[in-house]
């Protein structure tokens, strides 16, 4: 079957605009993760979904960031009023049950550039 799919692969946006990043996880995977990868910052955890609920949102850097997941499948990460420091690669991953019991499979990422 298909792997984790993210769209768009690249996004250039103007400072102050809102952006939406999409993640299609592997079918049947109940756990979904968003990470951010910036130069010099490594891989930062943003949010974790189990089904449609998000038991851990501790990594969202500000209230400009939000995410939702519908139907236990597709997830959207929204960044409002983008800032230059939001420029990064945003990675989505899914897992059959969560990384306390199984590995996570990653998408190719969305490279966000805020100009």
């Amino acid at each position: 079957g298909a792997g984790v799919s993210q769209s768009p692969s690249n996004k250039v946006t103007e400072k102050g605009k809102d952006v939406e990043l999409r993640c299609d996880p592997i079918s049947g995977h109940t756990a979904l993760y968003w990470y951010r990868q910036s130069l010099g910052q490594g891989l930062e955890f943003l949010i974790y979904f189990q089904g449609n609920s998000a038991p851990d949102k501790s990594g969202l850097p500000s209230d400009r960031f939000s995410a939702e997941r519908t139907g236990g499948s597709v997830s959207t990460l929204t960044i409002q009023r983008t800032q230059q420091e939001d420029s990064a690669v945003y990675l989505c991953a899914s897992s059959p049950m969560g990384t306390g019991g199984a590995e996570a499979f990653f998408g190719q990422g969305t490279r966000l550039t805020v100009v």
Partner: protein
Amino acid sequence: AQSVTQPDIHITVSEGASLELRCNYSYGATPYLFWYVQSPGQGLQLLLKYFSGDTLVQGIKGFEAEFKRSQSSFNLRKPSVHWSDAAEYFCAVGAMAAGNKLTFGGGTRVLVKP
């Protein structure tokens, strides 16, 4: 809270030589441990994982890793490196008790000399 340390930011190795990447973790119980590889412009690919059982685990591309509880380590090794192994390698720990969050080390970038 769980944490992962990869002490080496960069490693340069000659093609055909052996490679060892260090990983130390901090977690109160037995964690689930992973090594991922990221080639330039690519996502993360799982090399191997440790959940329980035999502490020496085999992965793809000829990699292996050994879990040493006494040293809180999960070092990655390859006996003979190929030029295609040039990439960034990430060690990670996941734990259900920690909310299933996957925590990554800072990564080690491997350069392979011909």
